[in-house]
């Protein structure tokens, strides 16, 4: 293998698994260290810089960081990253003085954002400090988008949502509530410098089966029904409820049903548990509330008696699953009737743009979804940008935030007459964490503690009202423990081959056998020859240049490194050093600074 180029930010970025997995690249280890030091406001601001809504995401983020967490590979359970984010948000002090100053004089550019969800709010958050006049159009009477209408208040309280949205609105962003955009042509006819579409994926999928029309009074589309519950248009539901589908929306539907008076809620899944789309923790929370999840039942028909829904018939399924966990065959082994007073359909959602006229230069693909560039988020018509669920279909809040950041960069460059593709690169800074002969400015001891569990409101108490938040948040003791579980993957093991005397000290001391000095070879071959099996090909191998005594190479399998720094402590020549990597992901404000510098230079 060629020597690894660690000056390329991507190499060390991949080592920080959580940050690499986070669509918005939140600097997780850094904010966990700040929480450990009791610097909650600093921790909140590290979060806010990348994910904008730490209080919201600390409760309901989809947490791609957690399955990626190295701790989950070294032990069993990952660090409770999302819970710690909430700790920072719950305990933060005054932070508004740390927000960017909004210029008194606008830069004269006007940007229209459609839909007041996380994507549009992020665009506003990034552009308002640069002097843009941002106007957000929202069809409903409150901002927040799906964060408000589809996430029940017992998971995400309204006041948390309000406070984080208000921070952005207070930047001088104009919010037009109850203002549905019915015509893109009309909007484009107005005097806007750029238009951002962040209107989500607002159409819940329907299930056309026999009896659907006749029983429509008791069949509800999941996301519409949740919205009606959120706005208190729906206040009750039948005794027996079936939820069709087993994604996160289904989990919100079943738990909401319990709070609206139903006593028997079943979630009906077509496939076995391994194929569920819902996050594990959402499944756990629903099952804790005695929701029954029924697998291998494929909906067949709605059953009516006297013109009223009484239940559904299902095909009972059997699946052949191969060693890789893929379904190779399926067959129906029977039929089953399950009684129900109401049925909620939570089987997915689609984008819907009936309000965008064709012929405006905004091209659509064969599924009637607009063509959007994956880097710039620009539609085929310059000056029109998409983000959040409306760009590439339903994802989640953290993806919407990242789309918003990137769209804001594009909008800024577009409005300044620059090429939207000419974006600043990601950069990296490395700085040693060595303080003394065996002292590091981070806590490098491996702490064999188990993941803390989130305390919940009691099972009877939580059903008294619809909006009692179930999760209480970590206590101080739980926080103190959980922060010690972070492995500090951002404190990188940096190797200088010219200094190595091949004494083997690092190899002998490494607790997880990450290191090997051996002859070089192709990657597949090297992976076989290391001190411990390097089977996880998702994780990189570091390969040094030839070592000066024997021309062998130092190889490090990044997979299970616990960043304990013992290699660097045992190294007699400081060939190993522990260095903190800090990545800079360019936002609109960085593009703005770069633009100013360019203009100054040319002037």
């Amino acid at each position, binding site marked *: 293998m060629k020597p690894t180029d660690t000056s390329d930010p991507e190499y060390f970025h991949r080592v920080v698994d959580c940050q690499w997995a986070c669509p918005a690249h939140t600097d997780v280890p850094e904010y966990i260290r700040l929480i450990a030091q009791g610097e909650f406001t600093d921790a909140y601001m590290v979060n806010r810089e990348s994910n904008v809504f730490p209080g919201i995401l600390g409760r309901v983020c989809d947490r791609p960081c957690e399955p990626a967490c190295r701790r989950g*590979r*070294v*032990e069993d359970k990952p660090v409770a990253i999302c819970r710690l984010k909430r700790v920072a948000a719950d305990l933060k002090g005054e932070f508004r003085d740390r927000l960017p100053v909004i210029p008194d004089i606008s830069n004269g550019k006007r940007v229209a954002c459609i839909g007041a969800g996380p994507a549009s709010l992020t665009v506003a958050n990034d552009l308002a400090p640069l002097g843009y006049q941002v106007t957000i159009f929202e069809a409903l009477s409150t901002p927040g988008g799906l964060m408000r209408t589809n996430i029940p208040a017992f998971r995400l309280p309204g006041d948390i949502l309000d406070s984080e949205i208000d921070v952005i609105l207070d930047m001088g962003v104009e919010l037009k509530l109850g203002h549905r955009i019915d015509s893109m042509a009309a909007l484009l006819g107005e005097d806007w410098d750029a238009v951002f579409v962040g209107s989500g994926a607002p159409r819940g999928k329907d299930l056309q089966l026999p009896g659907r029309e006749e029983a429509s009074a008791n069949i509800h589309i999941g996301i519409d029904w949740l919205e009606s519950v959120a706005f208190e248009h729906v206040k009750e539901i039948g005794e027996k409820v079936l939820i069709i589908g087993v994604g996160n929306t289904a989990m919100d539907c079943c738990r909401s049903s319990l709070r609206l008076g139903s006593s028997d809620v079943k979630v009906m899944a077509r496939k076995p548990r391994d194929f569920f789309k819902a996050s594990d923790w959402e499944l756990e929370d629903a099952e804790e509330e005695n929701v029954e999840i029924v697998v291998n039942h494929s909906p067949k028909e709605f059953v009516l008696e006297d013109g009223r829904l009484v239940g559904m018939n299902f095909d009972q399924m059997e699946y052949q699953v191969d060693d890789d966990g893929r379904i190779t065959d399926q067959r129906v082994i029977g039929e089953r009737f399950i009684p129900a007073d109401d049925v909620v359909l939570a089987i997915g959602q689609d984008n819907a743009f009936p309000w965008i006229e064709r012929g405006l230069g905004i091209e659509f693909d064969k599924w009637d979804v607009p063509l959007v560039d994956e880097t710039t988020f620009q539609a085929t018509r310059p000056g029109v940008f998409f983000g959040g669920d409306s760009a590439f279909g339903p994802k989640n809040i953290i993806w919407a935030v990242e789309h918003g950041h990137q769209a804001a960069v594009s909008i800024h460059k577009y409005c300044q007459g620059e090429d939207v593709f000419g974006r600043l690169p990601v950069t990296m800074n490395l700085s040693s964490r060595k303080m003394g002969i*065996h002292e590091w400015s981070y806590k*490098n*001891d*491996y702490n*064999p503690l188990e993941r803390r569990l989130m305390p919940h409101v009691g099972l009877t108490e939580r059903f008294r009202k619809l909006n009692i938040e179930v999760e209480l948040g970590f206590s101080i003791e739980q926080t103190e423990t959980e922060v010690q579980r972070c492995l500090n993957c951002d404190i990188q093991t940096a190797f200088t081959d010219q200094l190595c*005397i*091949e*004494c*083997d*000290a690092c*190899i*002998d*001391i490494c*607790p*997880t*056998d990450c290191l090997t000095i051996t002859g070089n070879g192709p990657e597949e071959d090297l992976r076989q020859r290391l001190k*411990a*099996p390097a*089977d996880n090909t998702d994780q990189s191998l570091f390969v040094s240049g030839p070592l000066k*005594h*024997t021309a062998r190479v130092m190889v490090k399998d990044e997979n*299970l490194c*616990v960043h*304990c720094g*013992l290699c660097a*402590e*045992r*190294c*007699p*020549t400081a060939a190993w050093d522990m260095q903190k990597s800090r990545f800079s992901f360019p936002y609109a404000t960085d593009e703005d600074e770069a633009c100013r510098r360019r203009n100054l230079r040319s002037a």
Partner: protein
Amino acid sequence: MSYRPKPRIAHPGLKKNALGLTRRDYEGGMSTLCAGCGHDSITAAIIQACFELAVEPHRVAKVSGIGCSSKTPAYFLSASHGFNSVHGRMPAVATGANAANRDLSYIGVSGDGDSLSIGLGQFCHAMRRNLDMLYLIENNGVYGLTKGQFSASADVGSKAKKGEVNEQPPIDPVLTALAMGGTFVARSFSGDKEQLVPLIKAGLRHKGFALIDVLSPCVTFNDHEDSTKSYAYTRQHYSPALETDFVRPAEEIMADYDAGAAMSIELHDGSRIVLRKAAPDYDPQNRGNAFAYIKDKLRDSEFLTGLLYVEETSRDMHALSNTAVRPLVDIGWDELCPGSSALPGILKRYR
């Protein structure tokens, strides 16, 4: 050194041996030697060898004298017996222990000071008795614990850290062992575990005194330019004469050997060592030739390494002394001591 013990966390894919133990189960306490010390690598090699042999830790006794080297038994096999004895007197303690319990495996760790200066007599007599033990000399050419004075193994012309030149000829432990009748004589290097681990395994299984002289650079006092025991110098003047493979009893010899250059030697327990000769004219079973060859190479400043001499048919201390087959510790007091009524009969034999 580091100020923290190695965390107990391990690679989840760590292999287990026949006893169900992992390599980590053979570790000991935290090393307090300097970072980069060759001795720590030798410790790791012992751990690896004991793991691969599936040695039962409680059937091992570790013995040592005084010096940096003699601290190391604390860093491996924490579940074994151990005795840290007086300077240079480890062979006497090991002899006593072995006399009382011949069934344990004995690992003695000594240094060039401990074995070649204060303990030279003890070292020679242990070989003369062919005491059944593995005896490792962690040889760095200096007294590291007392700030780097030359030891008895320092080469002529080697410079100390502050610049003094050594003028006295060294005592070479390998040549000494050959002269004293050593039955298993090897030399290796702390930086070459591929060679060292099979040697330790073979040494542990050899019936008799197994000496391995391990060149082990002192990073603090003897790793500079003009040192003849530095990592760089050792690698430049390192000449493997024989590559040793250790094959356990009833295990098939899997590797493909060139018939002319490979020789297989069976050990007492049925395991075999396969020696692959790098130098065709070298015979590791001819004491005189081996002595001359090694001496020639030393004159050319080359450290010949590998299993340099082996004699598996020799008798160990117990055989020479005609002692009981059962370990003395297992023999009851009544049987062990014939009592005062038998004493006159015994004394009568000497009248």
